[in-house]
């Protein structure tokens, strides 16, 4: 019999009722544990997670380490009641740490005002955090998986700012020991030249100023519609309709997250303009500090009413259908949280390195 745990103030409410998803996905930090899904508000300073327990028998092996003995016992006996939260529980902080790192991997709002996180450093910290709670994770290979994404971490950490070098050295050692235990080969540290292709690409010309503009506008990009750290999370996508040699052309441009070029050569991003029936879908390509695309369109497009001049930027694999706009309060909360993390001594090294 499945159960859910809701944290409310200093008590946990246990219930058999199906949980309601009341928190926006962009601010939810999660762990897939054995027999349960744990979730926190990524932007809040809360210690205990909500839980959806789909197999109490499997979760029984670790519940007490996250919620303390009383809540674990209440789940075991299937009681529907409120139970006071314990002072602390042995592994709740370690679990929270892993959830935060996984959240950052999926949702970090890199943009014009928020620096990007280094993926390899993030993966290295994720591997170690997963190792700490390995016994309660659903994915038996979670540590190896993260380690394989962390093979370039020694190089990334070699470039850490001087103030953070001691922490970087500790992380490199711990990572190397873990990799040694699991037989994963890390790449030796190299001098970084990551910014090269960025600088190179910046010189490319766009055709945004060609012809005569007959209309322009902007639209928010849903974070859930694009991979994390590709499109700048604090910029809207821009479109303009221009007559070039008498033919209307649609131009689309959206700012890239800093560092996006380094991690993803192509992003598989597309922009749809107007109603689906018009069939205007433009592939976007990395072009300097933006993703841009252009295509000739039918003359009637210039006559579209304002409310139909919509722009939808997305990776079609992530977002096959348009979703409801993300709540600006949620997005603000995430961006504010990210900025605070950059110089929080308790934050991950990936976040602190980005903040330097």
């Amino acid at each position: 019999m499945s159960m859910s745990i809701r944290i409310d103030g200093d008590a946990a409410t246990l219930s058999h009722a199906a949980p309601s998803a009341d928190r926006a996905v962009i601010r939810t930090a999660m762990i897939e544990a054995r027999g349960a899904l744990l979730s926190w508000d990524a932007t809040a300073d809360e210690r205990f997670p909500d839980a959806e327990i789909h197999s109490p028998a499997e979760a029984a092996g670790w519940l007490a380490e996250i919620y303390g003995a009383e809540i674990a016992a209440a789940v075991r006996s299937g009681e529907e009641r409120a139970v006071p939260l314990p002072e602390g529980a042995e592994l709740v902080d370690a679990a929270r740490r892993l959830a935060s790192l996984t959240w950052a991997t999926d949702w970090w709002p890199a943009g014009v005002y928020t620096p990007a996180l280094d993926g390899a450093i993030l993966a290295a910290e994720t591997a170690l955090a997963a190792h700490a709670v390995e016994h309660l994770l659903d994915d038996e290979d979670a540590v190896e998986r993260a380690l394989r994404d962390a093979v370039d971490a020694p190089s990334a950490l070699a470039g850490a700012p001087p103030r953070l070098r001691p922490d970087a050295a500790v992380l490199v050692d711990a990572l190397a020991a873990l990799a040694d235990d699991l037989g994963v080969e890390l790449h030796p540290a190299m001098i970084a030249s990551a910014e090269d292709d960025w600088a190179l690409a910046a010189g490319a010309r766009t055709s945004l100023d060609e012809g005569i503009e007959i209309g322009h506008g902007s639209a928010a990009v849903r974070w859930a519609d694009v991979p994390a750290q590709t499109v700048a999370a604090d910029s809207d996508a821009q479109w303009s309709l221009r007559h070039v040699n008498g033919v209307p052309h649609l131009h689309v441009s959206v700012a890239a997250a800093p560092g996006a070029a380094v991690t993803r050569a192509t992003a598989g991003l597309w922009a749809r303009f107007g109603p689906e029936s018009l069939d205007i879908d433009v592939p976007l390509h990395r072009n300097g500090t933006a993703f841009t695309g252009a295509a000739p369109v039918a003359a009637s497009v210039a006559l579209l009413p304002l409310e139909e001049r919509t722009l939808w930027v997305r990776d079609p694999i992530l977002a096959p259908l348009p979703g409801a706009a993300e709540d600006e309060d949620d997005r603000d909360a995430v961006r504010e949280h990210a900025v605070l993390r950059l110089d929080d001594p308790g934050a991950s090294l990936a976040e602190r390195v980005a903040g330097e």
Partner: protein
Amino acid sequence: MSPSATPSDPVSAAEASAMVPRAVVIQRAWSDLGESVAPLSNGSGRPLARTVKLVLDPLVIRPVQNPHLAGSALAPDAAAELAGSITDSRAELAATAEWFVVLKAARRTLRITGGNPQEKYFQRCFELARSLGRPDPSTAEQTAIEAVQEIVQADGENHLVRIREAVQDAAQAELLHASLVAAWATRAPTAGDDIDSAALAFDALDACGTDAVPNLHGLVDARAGSAAASGLEDPGAARALGLTTRDQPTMPELGATASKRTLPRPFDRSVFERLFAVLSGGSSVETDLDADEVLAEEILRTAQAWELADERSRVIMLLGSEASHALEPVDLLRPTNAHRMLRGRWDREAYVRRVRRLPADASGVPEAIRDDVHTVRQGYLRRLWVRMHGRELRGQRTSGSELWDTLDGILRSVVMDQRHRLKLAIGRGAEGAA
């Protein structure tokens, strides 16, 4: 033959509340061992999942021999006994941890990079600890180098070299082919005992994911797995389970080459491909058989029910084919606990819901993954067969207490694999938008 686990008796509410989760018992006993077992522990001092799977369960607790220590929750007496077995092994476990450090150093000395050291060395370390105690500084390095070299020798690749020679040698291949033909000539369907195996299967699957231990015993004794295999001869039956592309299972080729990327469905694999699938890629064969014997056994195996040799594996195929109905988008008439939990895992995946809800080209999910979602039951059973076949070759047996872990683990690996492919597709614009 070791006795298999028996199901727990029904317990009263009072007894149930006195039961202790098995994992908790193991962790508590483990934490008493302290720093001495750190190399076998995770970042918060709990035993690694591999430590439990490779060392504690098979070598210390031994639930197959001690069925009362098997369930996922234990009565107080059993909990105390289990904890005692770990505490009593304190010295051996500490020495195992020390040997692991020494073997890892030997691995570096020998510049070995393939494989997972925990997976490959944990059991050997326990054996060394049991026979030699703690590593003796004057001899440990040499012992470790020999042990690591021996493990390399036992590597499936070495068996595979010899097997490849045999099947590629014309004279030997002719003899092997003849024994293959002979094995298939005497192939006959097995009648099961006259028992209600459907009821036994239901009970075993319904015990999954609960504190009770599923009982495989009755099904194995009644040869229910073999009996079920006779249905595979019906035209299209084995194909419907994803085990072949043919109308009926036919005698496999002997085969002489194989490639990981292009392995056919299980029953369509040549004898060589079947062995290649298990032995290549550095997994070790924990068996006393030499390469020729492994080859001879595989030839016999192909002609048996489910093309597997052990009744236990066949029973698990039967249970897997029953439980995997949960992955099809149909109403289940009598769902067991296993059905409900497998369906729960599958339905939790957002991409699965998308593929089912949206027309093909609107789902955003690349075609190859979409197809695999629609035919997940076949993919599941293929993977289950490959797992059982691999376990047979390694001489591993699946006990009742491992049944759910096996059935659930197969679906988890299907999902993880599909998630990974989806992740790779993102950012590549695999299908474009149009």
